[in-house]
């Protein structure tokens, strides 16, 4: 039971990092990133491949952040010239292309067979609950640093500028600021966070295949921040909690309600994600923790 709770906590923290990245990009800056899972995948594969070459995880996880951030750079350059909704399509296409590349380039990623035997964090500690708690501690520390950094960003001049980009880009330009540079920075930062999340995921699950990086993951994260409240750090935290409750709860539900196969459950899960996205968009666009002073 303890091991199970620790496992859930670790996955929740990984989703939390993803949500924080998206909160920075969409919630604060208004960049509609529909390709979050692409950067998550880049992080996971980077860290996994480097660590299998024998590099220490203390190097490969930052490397995952760097590659995911660098991958976001060209996407950012393009985003400057596009309207919001086109950017959404481009990023969605990007994440699907990433998945195609990791599926096809077998020499590097072993294609659909995936990469097994990725080293764990703290492999020297015995496999039991101690190692789990140590892993959880590290991810928790990184998440707390990310939350602290986000709060600082929101309160900083940088935070005010990116929120202004979201609210009224023309007005910001009229004040002589250049939204382009800020957007690129935000995109790189958020993607680097997704890269770190991917690295932790790879080293925790120890086995990655392209099918783990489908667009549904992106929309899990979207669901989390939309339910929690867009543009609020607290929203990302609450939303991720509810997302985990939903993902794990649906697993238990299957044990209680007989006659629902795993495949049907997967379908139902997608359906509930869809329904919640629609309902929240219509009835509660600010989310649960949202800023009720504006719409």
């Amino acid at each position, binding site marked *: 039971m303890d091991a199970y709770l620790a496992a859930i906590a670790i996955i929740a923290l990984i989703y939390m990092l993803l949500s924080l990245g998206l909160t920075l990009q969409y919630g604060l800056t208004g960049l*509609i990133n529909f390709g979050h899972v692409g950067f998550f995948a880049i992080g996971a594969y980077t860290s996994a491949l480097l660590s299998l070459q024998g590099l220490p995880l203390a190097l490969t996880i930052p490397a995952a952040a760097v590659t995911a951030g660098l991958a976001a750079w060209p996407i950012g350059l393009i985003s400057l010239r596009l309207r919001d909704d086109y950017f959404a399509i481009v990023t969605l296409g990007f994440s699907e292309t990433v998945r195609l590349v990791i599926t096809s380039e077998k020499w590097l990623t072993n294609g659909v067979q995936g990469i097994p035997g990725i080293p764990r964090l703290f492999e020297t500690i015995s496999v039991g609950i101690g190692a789990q708690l140590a892993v959880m501690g590290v991810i928790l520390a990184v998440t707390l640093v990310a939350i602290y950094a986000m709060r600082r960003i929101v309160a900083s001049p940088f935070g005010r500028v990116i929120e202004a980009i979201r609210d009224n880009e023309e007005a910001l330009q009229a004040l002589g600021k250049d939204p382009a540079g800020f957007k690129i920075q935000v995109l790189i930062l958020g993607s680097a966070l997704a890269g770190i999340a991917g690295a932790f995921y790879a080293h925790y699950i120890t086995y990655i295949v392209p099918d783990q990086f489908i667009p549904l993951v992106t929309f899990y994260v979207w669901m989390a921040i939309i339910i929690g409240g867009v543009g609020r750090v607290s929203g990302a935290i609450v939303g991720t909690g509810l997302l985990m409750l939903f993902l794990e709860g649906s697993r238990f539900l299957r044990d209680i309600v007989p006659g629902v196969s795993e495949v049907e459950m997967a379908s139902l899960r997608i359906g509930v994600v869809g329904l919640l996205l629609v309902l929240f968009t219509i009835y509660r666009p600010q989310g649960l923790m949202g800023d009720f002073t504006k719409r």
Partner: protein
Amino acid sequence: MFYAQLAVNGLVQGLVVGLGALALTLVFGIARFPNAATGDTMTFGAYAALTVHKASGSLALGSIAAIGGAAVLALLAYLTVFKRLAGRSVVSLLVASIGIGFMIRAGLGVAFGHQQQVFNVPLSRPIRVAGLAINPLDLQLAAVAAVALAAVFAILYLTPIGRQMRAVADNRDLARVSGIRPERVMTAMWLITGGVSAVGGMMLGIKTIVSPEVGWEMLLPVFAATILGGIGSPVGAVVAGLVLGVAQEVSTPFVGFTYKIALSFVVLLAVLLVRPRGLFGRIEGVR
């Protein structure tokens, strides 16, 4: 000759992409948001056609059921969701359309399961025309697509409601002060969109397989064709779809089977960067 054969094979695929892009571009031009549920509406059409075809053995009945069913589905999505979100940001509509797509996919997954299904159509010997092998089934499918396209373009360009739709696409406010009722235009537009998607989905199902994900996987080529054709341009969408379908097939010997899908992404980026209006676009430019 080899490439000519590939190009011929790509035409049917191109029609599928073109039909999807036509559905997408109508919504984009008139309701002003990218409808990410387009792909799943196509899947719905494929399943509707498959079910009726299995029960009755008639593809004609199957296509009627698919068109009717998907048209009603699209209208329902408008009445229950998109109508309420009118005047909200594009993001709201986009996110809601993703949600609707997910719900359609979930419904199909629960109703029909996840295993791949195929249309039981009789195999026939290809016809040889000038050294090219042409599958009679492809000819039939092309004919179906041609009829569907002719019907849509006739509605758009020959009927009063079509003229009103184009007016709303051109300038919504001007259309409104001219006494065009947006409600009627939207209803007609969503019915047509659903029907067109269904024809595309059915063709896709007959040519390949039917599974709950087939439509969603078409979304990227469909978006690419819409933007290549120019947002809101029905002719552009169909032409761009054909171009993209042929280009995908012809590129296969060079880039391999898996990467032909990535071609859409490359085309999408190239068009957005070099010529955001697309080939035929004029209604709406991109910044």
